[in-house]
């Protein structure tokens, strides 16, 4: 199936700003879905609120655009009630980890088979550039005009600690790696987290004088390194990308099927 067949053309143009990284995420995601040969009817995309969450409107899957922070809770209901479906939940950094932080860690803890994509542009874009839990200490935002004193989460460490069984990070510069990671995340049976470092030139970039979208993507190229690469030892400031965790642990819906089996037998 051609990539454009996964898109609802009638709903374009999209709402994203010129230079926004989210369209690149959409591109890689659709390539991953295409390469897996999944039927559109098998995929449910659930999103919350924010720029990133609008991605669900543009794809021709079953799409559920919910309320701020709660996408994973809705997705848990969809998945538990129809475990055979593939659940993809794209979220922004604020959506996933500020207002939705509790749902995030608990979905990870349950190891429910959902693919969570965190499109991390380190800012609340839709409301005009307020700092998020990923903006980082010292960054500037409309609500941190004198510099941000909030420290940021490390999504990989957080996901790992919360119990996610697939954890990866990539960037909008590394589009082939992104598609490959999405593929593996969707195939993984359990809770998968993919952090995509994405650029918001309109707000984060402008406020923090990071240049154009291209400059910001160039930064992703020069300031990241593959997981386990020796260059990380030489330069500890480099951000690792790739797959950090990939392990088997009992998946929630499958375990519940066993519960149902036991309950029906009266055990």
């Amino acid at each position: 199936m051609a990539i454009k067949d996964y898109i609802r053309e009638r709903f374009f143009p999209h709402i994203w700003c010129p230079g926004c990284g989210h369209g690149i995420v959409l591109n890689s995601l659709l390539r991953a879905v295409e390469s897996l040969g999944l039927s559109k009817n098998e995929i449910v995309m659930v999103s919350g609120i924010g720029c990133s969450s609008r991605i669900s409107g543009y794809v021709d899957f079953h799409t559920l655009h919910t309320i701020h922070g709660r996408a994973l809770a809705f997705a848990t209901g969809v998945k538990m009630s129809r475990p055979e479906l593939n659940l993809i939940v794209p979220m922004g950094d604020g959506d996933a980890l500020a207002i939705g932080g509790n749902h995030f860690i608990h979905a990870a803890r349950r190891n429910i088979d959902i693919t969570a994509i965190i499109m991390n542009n380190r800012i609340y874009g839709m409301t005009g550039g307020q700092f998020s839990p990923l903006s980082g200490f010292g960054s500037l935002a409309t609500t941190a005009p004198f510099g941000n004193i909030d420290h940021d989460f490390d999504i990989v460490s957080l996901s790992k600690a919360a119990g996610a069984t697939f954890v990866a990070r990539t960037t909008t510069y590394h589009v082939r790696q992104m598609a490959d990671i999405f593929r593996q995340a969707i195939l993984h049976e359990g809770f998968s987290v993919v952090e995509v470092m994405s650029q918001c030139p309109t707000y984060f970039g402008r406020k923090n004088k990071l240049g154009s979208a291209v400059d910001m993507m160039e930064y992703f190229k020069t300031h990241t390194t593959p997981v386990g690469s020796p260059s990380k030892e030489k330069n500890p400031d480099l951000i690792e990308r790739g797959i950090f965790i990939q392990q088997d642990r009992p998946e929630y819906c499958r375990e519940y099927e066993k519960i149902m089996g036991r309950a029906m037998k009266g055990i």
Partner: protein
Amino acid sequence: MTENIKFVQGNEACVEGALYAGLDFFAGYPITPSTEIAEHLATRLPRVGGRFLQMEDEIASICAIIGASLTGHKVMTATSGPGFSLMQEGLGFAVMAEIPCVIVDVQRGGPSTGNPTHVSQADVNQARWGTHGDHAIVALTASNHQDVFAMTVEAFNIAETFRTPVVLLLDEVIGHMRERLTVPEPDVVPVVRRLRTSAGEGVDYHPYLPREDGRLPMSDFGGVHRYNVTGLFHDMWGFPTDNPRAVHDLTRHLVDKIQNRVHKLARFKEYYLEDARILLIAYGSAARSALQLVEQRRSRGERIGLLELQTLWPFPSGLIREKCADARYVVVVEMNMGQVLREVKVAVEDQEKVFLANRIDGSLINHHDIMNILRIIQSKGV
């Protein structure tokens, strides 16, 4: 066939009603005095092929049931005041996206943590006005376990018929009290099945295009029709729009589909109303005390009656106006500061004849409490 008679708590009667109505997905979070609903469903649901989820909070609980409703399941959550507060945004989503679901609120004292193990009826207005934005809501209640069962089935039937969340407002006394319940045989009480689209695969399905009769057939998520569901104002495809006409029409639709059916949705019981000069209006556990008083006074020849409300929202104003027309005194009996009283005053022609008999101390209002108010109203002294 022997009757299926049980001696149960009201919370269990609710569970029996839900299962009878076809509940097959529940998500919830422990909170007094509703917890027994979750506990019983954790055992009962997997036995019948249903699913039970304990979520991380009440917000997640209502979101999970909405997701499961979309895939074609009959869903419910249960909570009490504080949890119901947390559910309000999700409730609004279910209103906006027109997702059938049942939310049980076993009321306790509030605001805040309040009086968790004691009775109250102070969430009547939260049920109506708790979520933001113009909308209408259906809220039912019951005063005994047979009615809890019946109203729970009704809640599911109304949710499916009108594609709306329905709130079931129980209270701590009803939830925890034990009494007899007869569970009807299957198919004795009508159960509304979900209306699904007749559009086949490959045929365009418009999730928000009403049929000629105004109903919106659904298509299960994960089935053959792919469509968008959103909490934004949306068009017939479910795609977001801020077109003023579309926003206006959807607002009207969401309100009118409930408010235009007040009469059809009104559930109530009447006791000795024919010649009643004193009319008590009550609901939930307070109606039991009101009925006790009415029967006592009737045995002494007093012309007193009880109108027991089982539908609180949409408020049956026309019914109230009609029933109160010939009464000299109307006394609203409830365990709050007058939440239904206010609606009754708006409904009747003469507000001066409407009084409140209430308790707000966590104790069940009893027939003495109501009698004392009656004596004051009738200038007989306490």
